[in-house]
């Protein structure tokens, strides 16, 4: 695998040097849940706290100026990483908040309009309108829209899945129509690994005047993504899945859409003028960033961007593609093992879910854990997707830049060990 030198990368991640479960070397294959952090990210956060810590966008002292500068530089850096300008990047607590921010634009606009506030009609919903998601959404891109529908009377629709874990694109013809007001889809599924044709779906959404939203949590950390090329109005992702700290997420929005949306969280920092009778709001992105901003996390996220760009996102994607091909080949031929999701590496990311016949995913995960291998078990916050494939849960590996082929070999060995332990014929 030219390009990514795993041994050198591993040395940058202090946690990957530790042992678990009675001195076994850690094999971390749960980056789909959260990635580990290189020392560069940890150092950047620490350096900020040690030298420039202050509340950004408040105060006129030198530290406040430096903190504001650090926060805004981080915004520019994160924007640059995905081909967006600074003013199109909103920092949030996490991707879940980013998606809620998008969803609340609809329920808040609908409520505001009822009492005479002028709102952009695209965000005003009523019975008969529809909201479209997919059957492979993470709960974070499903439940906010269920709530929007419950509050406004709109109807939730979803794009069904094929048995191979891809979107049933032929259903779009019927699902997107003049009633469609918002289409919110995941770019890369966290449970199935599927990479969806979001640009095509966004184009279809725009053709009927709907707002287009993309959940890019599992794509932006793993492949080059130009948010403008996705054609979406709004794109949400998190910092902690791309080597950055927890506590920071991102929402990209076109200038036009961010201007048209009402605020989500309100309070300090997001205002223009405040009087007892009412207030006016700052322009985006400040309009969506109430409260003291998470400067250290933004600085850490910018350092993560630097780290990924130094590797090159093309190289990252190529590395993961090779791991994916290898894992699909091995797991696909293992007796008693069934992959839930596309069996081929094309248009597919490295998150691979599987079930082992006769052994519950929890028990598979426990045997792997006992060998020092950290994987995710459960429904991966995509319970309806599990139901679609008639499995209560799955075991999922989600490799990243610090994993190599030997880690996949270890998983295969672990599955065989689980089959021996639970006396399942394989």
């Amino acid at each position: 695998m030219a390009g990514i030198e795993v041994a050198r990368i591993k040395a940058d991640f202090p946690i990957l040097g530790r042992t678990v479960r009675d001195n076994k070397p850690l094999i971390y294959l749960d980056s789909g849940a959260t990635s580990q952090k290189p020392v560069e990210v940890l150092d950047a956060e620490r350096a900020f706290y040690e030298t420039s810590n202050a509340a950004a966008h408040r105060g006129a002292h030198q530290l406040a100026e430096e903190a504001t500068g650090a926060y805004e530089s981080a915004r520019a850096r994160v924007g640059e990483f995905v081909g967006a300008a600074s003013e199109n990047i909103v920092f949030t607590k996490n991707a879940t908040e980013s998606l809620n921010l998008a969803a609340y634009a609809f329920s808040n606009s609908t409520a505001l309009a009822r009492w005479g506030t002028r709102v952009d009609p695209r965000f005003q919903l009523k019975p008969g309108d529809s909201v479209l998601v997919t059957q492979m959404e993470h709960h974070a891109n499903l439940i906010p829209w269920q709530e929007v529908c419950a509050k406004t009377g709109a109807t939730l629709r979803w794009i069904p899945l094929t048995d191979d874990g891809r979107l049933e694109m032929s259903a779009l013809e019927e699902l997107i129509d003049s009633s469609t007001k918002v289409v919110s889809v995941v770019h890369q599924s966290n449970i199935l690994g599927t990479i969806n044709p979001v640009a095509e779906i966004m184009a279809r959404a725009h053709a009927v005047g709907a707002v287009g939203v993309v959940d890019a949590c599992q794509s932006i950390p793993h492949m080059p993504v130009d948010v403008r090329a996705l054609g979406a109005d709004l794109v949400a992702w998190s910092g902690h899945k791309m080597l950055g700290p927890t506590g920071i997420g991102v929402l990209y929005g076109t200038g036009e859409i961010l201007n048209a949306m009402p605020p989500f969280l309100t309070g300090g920092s997001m205002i223009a003028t405040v009087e007892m009778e009412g207030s006016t709001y700052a322009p985006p992105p400040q309009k969506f960033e109430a409260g003291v901003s998470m400067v250290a996390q933004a600085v850490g996220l910018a350092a993560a961007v630097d780290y990924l760009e130094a590797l090159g996102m093309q190289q990252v994607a190529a590395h993961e593609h090779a791991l994916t091909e290898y894992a699909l080949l091995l797991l696909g031929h293992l007796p008693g093992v069934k992959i839930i999701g596309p069996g081929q590496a094309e248009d597919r990311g490295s998150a691979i879910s599987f079930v082992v016949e006769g052994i519950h995913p929890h028990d598979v995960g426990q045997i792997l854990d006992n060998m020092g291998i950290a994987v995710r078990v459960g429904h991966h916050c995509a319970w309806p997707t599990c139901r679609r494939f008639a499995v209560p849960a799955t075991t999922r590996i989600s490799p990243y830049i610090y994993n190599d082929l030997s880690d996949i070999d270890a998983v295969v060995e672990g599955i065989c060990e689980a089959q021996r332990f639970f006396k399942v014929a394989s």
Partner: protein
Amino acid sequence: MSIESLYQDIILDHYKNPRGRGLLAAPLGVAFHVNPTCGDEVNMQVATAADGGLLIGYEGTGCSISQASASVLYELVRGLPVAEAEKIRMAFLELMHSQGHAEPDEEVLGDAIAFVGVAKYPARIKCALLPWMALQDAEIKGGLMTEANGDQK
């Protein structure tokens, strides 16, 4: 800490050969509990026999720990007066919160002593407790126990 301490043979045996699995014809109280982090499910049913002893019916899907725990529960509490069953339930709860340091009383807990190793794995304690929490819920719903203090009627 070996994996065998978690998956003791007794647990694997109950998992592979669950005792008394099946539903009651006329349950008094029914509780369907799921572990929302993993989707494990137990449907627990209670009723009382003419002599006042507990009748237990259950079904479920999930990991070896949750399903073996349901089978062990069935063996331990069926036929007992509600008050006696509750003593065993409380002993099991205590065992699960012992962080693996308890020396469980086999007289009280029978096969459930095999779950002592589970208490060392915080992520699995909920699996073991699932049927036992469902039992309490089913007893409350069936009017065999009051909600306020867990006291038996």
